[in-house]
């Protein structure tokens, strides 16, 4: 059922839930459905309603201390039923196997789990996200010396809005109780300080808080809000819950995105082509993972883009004429042979990229956040290497010629129109087997709390280059199975 916390009765929360899931975005809804389907009694608490409102969205306001700034913090995520899936772009691919292993060029990298731990959930994640079919990735380079691997993005089309897709199912559910307009304002530990005893919520119109008890709790509030909730819950632990090693909020990760050039290809571009490095190439060049995309910028930003590029008539122009026109800056005689080149790359782990609390408070008295985000020399080297490697491969194999964008090859400063983030908020409660290096363990449990878990991309130990939603759903399904095992 779905209820409005504004209309709650006095006795509504006297009985504990099996699991209290906080946040009804992709992670929270997936987790609640998984547990509810297994017969467990779940309370799913969403801070917003069915529609976006100024009152709810204002809670997301914050500041940016990275200078110049990141996106406005109330503009890069959404605070209502379905969460940020309500403006999700729909791009997905899984992390690569080597994203889970340490990269010697990226200190603290490596996960305590591997890709094999998430693969059992891949098919179900694809179904939940309504993805386009899997298929062999297109490749314009070929050859046997493949240190650049063709990769495939799959698309959610139209992009799955979790609130819209699962509202009817949750309204009819006998096991999952959804509460709208329920804003988490505190988490209180039990007498021995080892477990969460209750989560405290407030609605917008009624000033009195209400407490919810459960055997297990899961924070699924997103990569910026999960750390905010933990840091603000400082009644019993002054540094915040789970913050014994000053890690909550640190190691914020994004995917630096940048146009890096344009290309003229011998074969027509009929599909967006993506290349990523092998682990050997990453080691040799001393860089991080990347996904270099060749296609058409306007087409792949369209909401109905599924990978196929606009069909063009057969080309009768020879390659040298195509290349000469591109070098001269003339209109391409055949658009199918001319493409934009764009890179989204993994980001280096940095403790200085972080979410922290500031003095300004929201309507519930909770401190707002400031985000510091910057790109590193290694991030920039990764972008430049991606461009140089692909440009060189196309020339070596005579499959095309690529022009590397001027600022990148000259090492100029990356200004706002040159590089940006993907609205991907990761790493702020990162996963590690060692409590000194991560906030959650391999099961997504806060190291220092027995019954508190995190869902969503805040647990990512590294970012890879892949858009995060697919992995978020895989992790939520896996967390659901783990919580079921604990509850039995």
């Amino acid at each position: 059922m779905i209820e409005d916390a504004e209309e709650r009765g006095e006795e509504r929360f006297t009985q504990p839930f099996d699991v209290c899931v906080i946040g009804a975005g992709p992670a929270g809804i997936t987790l609640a459905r998984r547990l509810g389907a297994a017969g467990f009694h779940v309370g799913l608490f969403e801070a917003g309603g069915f529609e976006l409102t100024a009152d709810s969205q204002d809670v997301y306001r914050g500041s940016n201390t990275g200078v110049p700034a990141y996106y406005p913090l109330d503009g890069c995520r959404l605070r209502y039923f379905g969460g940020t899936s309500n403006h999700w772009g729909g791009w997905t691919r899984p992390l690569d196997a080597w994203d889970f292993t340490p990269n010697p060029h990226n200190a603290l990298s490596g996960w305590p789990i591997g890709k094999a731990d998430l693969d059992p959930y891949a098919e179900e994640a694809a179904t939940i996200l309504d993805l386009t079919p899997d298929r062999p990735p297109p490749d314009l380079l070929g050859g046997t010396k493949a240190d650049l691997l063709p990769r495939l993005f799959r698309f959610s089309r139209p992009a799955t809005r979790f609130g819209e897709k699962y509202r009817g199912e949750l309204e009819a559910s006998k096991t999952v109780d959804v509460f709208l307009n329920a804003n988490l304002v505190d988490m209180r530990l039990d007498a021995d300080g080892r477990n969460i005893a209750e989560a405290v919520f407030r609605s917008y119109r009624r000033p009195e808080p209400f407490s919810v008890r459960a055997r297990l709790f899961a924070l699924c509030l997103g990569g910026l809000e999960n750390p905010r909730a933990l840091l603000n819950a400082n009644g019993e632990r002054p540094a915040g819950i789970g913050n014994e090693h000053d890690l909550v909020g640190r190691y914020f990760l994004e995917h630096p995105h940048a146009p890096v050039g344009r290309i003229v290809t011998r074969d027509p571009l009929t599909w967006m082509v993506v290349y990523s490095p092998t682990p050997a190439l990453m080691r040799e060049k001393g860089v991080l993972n990347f996904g270099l995309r060749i296609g058409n910028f306007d087409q792949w930003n369209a909401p109905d883009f599924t990978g196929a590029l606009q069909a063009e008539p057969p080309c009768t122009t020879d390659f040298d004429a195509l290349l000469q026109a591109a070098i001269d800056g003339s209109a391409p005689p055949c658009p199918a042979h001319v493409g934009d080149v764009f890179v989204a790359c993994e980001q280096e782990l940095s403790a200085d990229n972080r979410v922290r609390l500031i003095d300004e408070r929201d309507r519930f008295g909770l401190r707002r956040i400031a985000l510091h985000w910057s790109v590193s020399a290694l991030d920039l080297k990764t972008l430049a290497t991606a461009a140089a490697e692909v440009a060189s491969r196309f020339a070596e194999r005579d499959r095309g010629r690529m022009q590397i964008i001027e600022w990148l090859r000259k090492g100029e400063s990356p200004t706002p129109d040159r590089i940006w983030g993907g609205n991907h908020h990761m790493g702020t409660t990162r996963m590690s087997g060692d409590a000194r290096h991560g906030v959650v363990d391999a099961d997504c449990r806060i190291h220092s709390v027995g019954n508190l878990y995190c869902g969503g991309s805040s647990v990512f130990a590294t970012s890879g280059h892949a858009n995060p939603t697919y992995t978020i759903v895989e992790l939520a399904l896996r967390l659901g199975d783990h919580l079921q095992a604990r509850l039995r």
Partner: protein
Amino acid sequence: MRYRRLRAGRHVTQRVLVSRRSLLAWAAALPFAAHAASAPDLAPGALEMHDGWVLRPGDRARLKLR
């Protein structure tokens, strides 16, 4: 209106800062030159760059380069 724009998923341009020290380190590591010298399918140094275009031997003779 603002919230309708948010729902439509329009991106907001943001800016990025790197320290001068980081920038210099990165520029020094710009990988093109090193790669061209070790291109697996061509003689060392065979590739060249013109106005950002990465070209093969013979391209210069066929193309009109400014």
